């Protein structure tokens, strides 16, 4: 589905992530099809809000199935790169609730993606 054609529908579909019991599945859905070439700022903002929602739902502990580590391990390289882009986007607008979670997400994603994933956030010309 192309973002320009179906923005509202896309966001609604992603909002359904709140209803998916498995957090890892919700994460994969939220990261799917990032609106990279979308000119509409509203769409980009709303998409980011959905992703942030999903990210804050994860727990920090290492072992449970809802942990960030489990989430990160389930992602493919491209999805991991997308996640890193969202994390760095989150760093630019820190809020009370998001900072701690984002830093923990960064630690988990970095353990799998390494320096390369951070380099790709910086060298990618399509921002999320």
């Amino acid at each position, binding site marked *: 589905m192309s973002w320009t054609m179906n923005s509202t529908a896309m966001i609604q579909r992603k909002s359904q992530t709140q209803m998916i019991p498995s957090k890892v599945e919700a994460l994969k859905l939220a990261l799917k099809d990032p609106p990279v070439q979308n000119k509409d700022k509203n769409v980009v903002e709303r998409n980011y809000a959905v992703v942030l929602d999903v990210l804050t739902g994860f727990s920090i502990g290492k072992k449970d199935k809802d942990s960030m580590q489990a989430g990160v391990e389930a992602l493919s390289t491209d999805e991991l790169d997308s996640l890193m882009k969202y994390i760095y986007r989150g760093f630019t607008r820190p809020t009370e609730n998001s900072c701690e979670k984002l830093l923990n997400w960064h630690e988990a994603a970095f353990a799998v993606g*390494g320096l*390369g994933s951070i380099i790709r956030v910086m060298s990618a*010309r399509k921002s999320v």
Partner: protein
Amino acid sequence: MPEVYEVVNGPITCHCWNKDRSKLAICPNNNEVHIYAKKSGKWEVEHILTEHGQRVTGMDWAAESDRLVTCAADRNAYVWTYTGSAWKPSLVILRINRAATVVKWSPKENKFAVGSGARCVSICYFEKENDWWVSKHIKKPIRSTVLSLDWHPNNYLLAVGSTDFKARVFSTYTKEIEEKPDSTCWGKKMPFGQCMAEFTTAGGGWVHCVSFSPSGNKLCWVSHDSSISVVDQSKEQDAVVVSVKHTYLPYLACQFLTESSIVAAGYDCYPVLWNYDDNNKLTFINKLDQSEKKAGGASMSAMNKFKQLDTKATTASADTELESTHQNSITQILVYSGSQGSADVFSTIGVDGRVVIWACKSLEAAIAGLKFS
């Protein structure tokens, strides 16, 4: 153990070896070319060539004809011939309006290619009638600075990596000096300047280096988005680009050592080995640098401890030395020795002013489980 030579105190921009590796030419990050000769195990300066007006950005030594070609940011290139006692420069008319970035002799040494910021590659050959070097330009479809070049063993095809995020293969068939090329897996018709193939990078980053495999059937390129890619064109219709977005800092240089071994190095300051097999799988094999950190600073005198505390607010020994052999980014890898089809020694230079020579056999012995296939 790799042989380490601390040649200069600053970055080395580029280097090249003569045929028997008794001489080394480098540019110490200025407008000079220093030619070193090996005297009793150490490299000593033999000649300093100062024809260029600005930083020398690329150089190559033609093994058989013993000629040196250098290109610089002053938009010029010179071909140097050794007259027994000194090096005599001969100007090359490049006709570019931006700095040259890289230069490579072709395998038969009858022409060389110069990449530049003028968004073109100049293919230069010697015109006997006028006794000078002339150039032909390959412009389309290069859209930005050319950063790297590599020649195909057939002397006609040239791989070009540039900052427009693409790696391309061009034909440089120059009818004035050579016969028509035979068809290869890259294509049948090869007029001058024809773009035989164009590849992009996985995530969009400058292509820092390109390298053909010894047979010329495979092309490898590394780019700034921390990816390494290989394409095996001998599969023709089934040729597929295999890219790996790796987890290390970007590579600045890559070189095929054999048909399936690629050595790459860059901002991580150590060379690594990648393997590309027949099933189109590109896998990371191993880090090639196993040097250990010097176990120094074991006991500090009381005075030193307080001195440290005063100046640096810490009692730990402030060790700024890296564990790897190179202390700064590696910028170029060259094949040092080996047979046709398989190199067994390669050399690297870096921003730390060191020239390091790595022998594959001793690396295989030092690192458990390592095999250069």
